[in-house]
């Protein structure tokens, strides 16, 4: 029973981590919580669904197109809603409020155009399960988990080994200095949003396959946001660890105490952590950054 609980916790945590990465990426550069991320995840799920229904009924093309589509949407979102605020040097609180507005706007846009009904992805892995010492894990969860870890690892390599990645990290350290050194800030930020959006696209597809596709599905990212805060907003390894910890804690509480108390523990953990480790487990000091 414990092994099964841990496996379930890890697979839930893997999806939290995938979503938390998007929050952390944007936060690390622009220092605000992009609450529109959940809406981009939802749009990613709809894009993937569209591909599967009308173009090719296979998983990989859906993932690829959803990543690109959601990435482009995230960049557009930044251009239309945040860039002007950013240029005016508005406080990050305003950016956050704008992001919340975007989330509600995008959600209602989907309500108005596609409608409120639920959709499901076709069964890519049927219900095939892998048995491990008496515990079962579905092939999809295994795939999603490996894919999440792989994608986060790839992102880490991109940020540490490529020129653009180094520019992003320089921007994280000091944006003004970075732009004085001749880095095109608008391009840099577009790359960051594209990456965050691409992760949203993958997360959207996995959420859609695991659960269902509907306009308010993005709100599950509240949990991913908590995961990002637990791990330390702005830190990629932190997002991964935060996601996995949250997934395991939630599953343990649901199994051994009661699922009704689950959120009591998740949010309690968040408050306790903020009291004792305000920057999260792996977060850096953000006090001086404006």
């Amino acid at each position: 029973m414990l092994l099964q609980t841990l496996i379930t916790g890890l697979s839930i945590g893997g999806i939290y981590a995938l979503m938390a990465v998007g929050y952390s990426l944007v936060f690390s550069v622009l220092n605000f919580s992009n609450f529109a991320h959940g809406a981009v995840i939802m749009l990613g799920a709809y894009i993937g669904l569209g591909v599967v229904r009308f173009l090719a009924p296979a998983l990989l093309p859906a993932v690829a197109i959803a990543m690109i589509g959601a990435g482009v949407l995230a960049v557009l979102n930044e251009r239309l809603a945040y860039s002007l605020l950013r240029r005016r040097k508005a406080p990050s609180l305003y950016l956050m409020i704008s992001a919340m507005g975007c989330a509600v706007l995008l959600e209602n846009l989907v309500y108005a155009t596609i409608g409120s009904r639920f959709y499901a992805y076709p069964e890519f892995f049927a219900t095939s399960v892998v048995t491990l010492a008496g515990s079962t894990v579905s092939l999809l969860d295994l795939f999603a988990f490996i894919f999440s870890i792989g994608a986060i690892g790839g992102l880490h390599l991109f940020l540490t080994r490529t020129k653009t990645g180094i520019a992003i990290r320089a921007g994280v350290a000091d944006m003004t200095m970075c732009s004085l050194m001749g880095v095109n800030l608008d391009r840099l930020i577009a790359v960051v949003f594209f990456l965050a959006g691409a992760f949203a696209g993958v997360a959207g597809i996995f959420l859609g396959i695991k659960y269902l596709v509907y306009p308010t599905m993005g709100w599950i990212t509240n949990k991913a946001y908590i995961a990002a805060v637990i791990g330390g907003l702005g830190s990629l390894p932190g997002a991964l660890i935060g996601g996995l910890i949250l997934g395991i804690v939630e599953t343990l509480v649901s199994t051994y105490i009661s699922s009704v108390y689950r959120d009591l523990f998740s949010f309690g953990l968040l408050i306790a952590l903020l009291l004792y480790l305000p920057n999260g487990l792996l977060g850096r000091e953000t006090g001086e950054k404006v």
Partner: protein
Amino acid sequence: MRKFAVILACAVLCLFVGTALAEEVVKIGHTVSLTGGASMWGQSEKRALEMLIEKLNAEGGVLGKKIVLVSYDNRNDAVEAVNVARRLVEDGVVAVIGPAQSGNAIASAPILEKAQVPMVVTTATNPYVTLDKKTEKIRPFAFRPCFIDPFQGTVAARFAFRDLKAKTASILYDVGSDYGQWLAKYFEEAFVKEGGQVVAKEAFRTDELDYRAQLGKMKELNPDVIFIPTSQKEAAMAAKQARDLGIKAVLLGTDNWGSPDLIELGGSAIDGGFFVNLTDLADPDIQDFVAEYRQKFGEDPVLPNPVMAQDALLLIVDSIKRANSFEGPKVAEAMANTVGLKVTSGTLTIDPTTHDPLDKPAVIQKVDVTNNAFPFHMKFYPQDVK
């Protein structure tokens, strides 16, 4: 000054025309979820009512007046349902059809009761829709044409124990829904009474998506059936997650499963499940209705709401005729004494002591994914489970 006189004259004229028009029509209120998770049923319900009203008006309406349907969207939300009830009272409706969900119906009942407007819910099956929980007295203005949850829970338990030969059961329910919470209780009581054992009763909170922690616990206990009194969305997700965990138990549901998209959402995981419903497409009594609906809208009605809404409307119209009045208290009194009224789903007899129907059967439908259908499995009458 002349301008003012013209405006005044216009206003007076409008007033006369307005009253003249008002006298020719009778408004029947309709509180329904036209958006949100329950909109599929809501939209179909509204169409079925409009279809029937067209026919009734062609036959002369009721007491010489044309019927006008005033539909407002309650978004399947209790607060919004209260607002809609208030608005309908302000609009001066003679009776209200809906809401379809127990929680919304329970929230709306006191407002309509105070305004003395009879309310006929469509598919709200919780006992406390027609019964005041505080005083344990019947709500004088609340009625329903559908069966109630103690009956539904009993039917599910009896079917599980006697027909599926299940000895052990577990329950997965939404702790935030009146519907799920009470059905879980009624099923448990009836299943234990039959001689079975409920090995696990696990709750989740409304809008939660992942039930694997709860299901993982059930897997250890290996129940023969899992009773899931939720709507099709939660049932589909629970089914997928249960199969992912390798659970082989038969899944058993309630009338909220009965949505055409259950199979699309649940896929092969939901195959072979059973659920209790108010009526089904193959029910011989409703074939005329189904044919008419198909012809008019080019698709199948989303059952059971359209049928129940038509039953509600027919009950209202018949009661107005028998009361020979549009006054709420008189109509409600006539409603309470309805015997053998011919309605869309068959006949309707209201129990004057409970305001629930005496003769509404429950059907068991099977989930057949291969043929994308819910074939009729068996039927239970109230006297069967006494």
